[in-house]
């Protein structure tokens, strides 16, 4: 059952993103930036948290999950540290993925050439 919900939620986000790219003048970069912003807003409203509880990876893997994790970091860190939580906590959850992606990208670029 969890797999089905992950499939439906993740697929739904991708399907909507595809429609946005095809039907409007937005490029995929616009759409991804929009997804991240939407995830952050829904996270701030407390709705995305519930979606992650139900859909798991289906809500975390789309880029809206990235926006949610940014907000989640501010919220959880800010509860203890007040206003300092905004700047410090923002990377609390995504820092791991972000730094890993940067380092691995760097070393991959060391080894691999683009193939065209």
């Amino acid at each position: 059952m969890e797999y089905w919900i992950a499939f439906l939620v993740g697929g739904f986000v991708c399907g909507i993103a595809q429609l946005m790219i095809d039907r409007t003048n937005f490029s995929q970069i616009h759409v991804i930036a929009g997804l991240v912003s939407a995830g952050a807003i829904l996270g701030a409203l407390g709705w995305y948290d519930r979606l992650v509880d139900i859909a798991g990876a289906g809500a975390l893997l789309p880029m809206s999950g990235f926006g949610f994790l940014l907000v989640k970091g501010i919220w959880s860190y800010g509860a203890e540290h007040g206003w300092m939580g905004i700047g410090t906590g923002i990377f609390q959850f995504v820092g791991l993925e972000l730094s890993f992606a940067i380092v691995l990208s760097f070393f991959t670029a060391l080894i691999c050439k683009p193939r065209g």
Partner: protein
Amino acid sequence: MRLRDNYQKAVKQFQPKPPYVVNSLKAFVSGGLLCVLGEALKKWYINGFGVSQEVAEHWMMLTVISLAILLTGIGMYDTFSQFAGAGATALLSGFANSLVSAAMEHRSEGWVSGVANHMFKIGGAAIVYGIVVAYVLGVVYYIM
């Protein structure tokens, strides 16, 4: 109506329309399947390694990022994206692909001015908008 009198509008009948339904379905199924893979990985990390839910989620995301970077490195991710569309790009794997593809493309300009400078050429938009929006929301939350 003659084409040349009202070119910008009249030309639309000659331009191929993207197959909206098929494209969206492809994105839906590919994106959904990737999320199922993520969910399965998460379950496996929890049950097989006995880690907590939160740690398993992080491991799962790191695995997906590694997979995307590996596939980009061997030149297969762009082929997958041509099929899956947003099903490949709107996910965290697409973000990882945007970083590594830009880094690889600009390695010919050197390690600092090429790879480092250009890595966030595409993926930067997601980070900038994510941080700006989250920061503003954080300020609003703090004030309230």
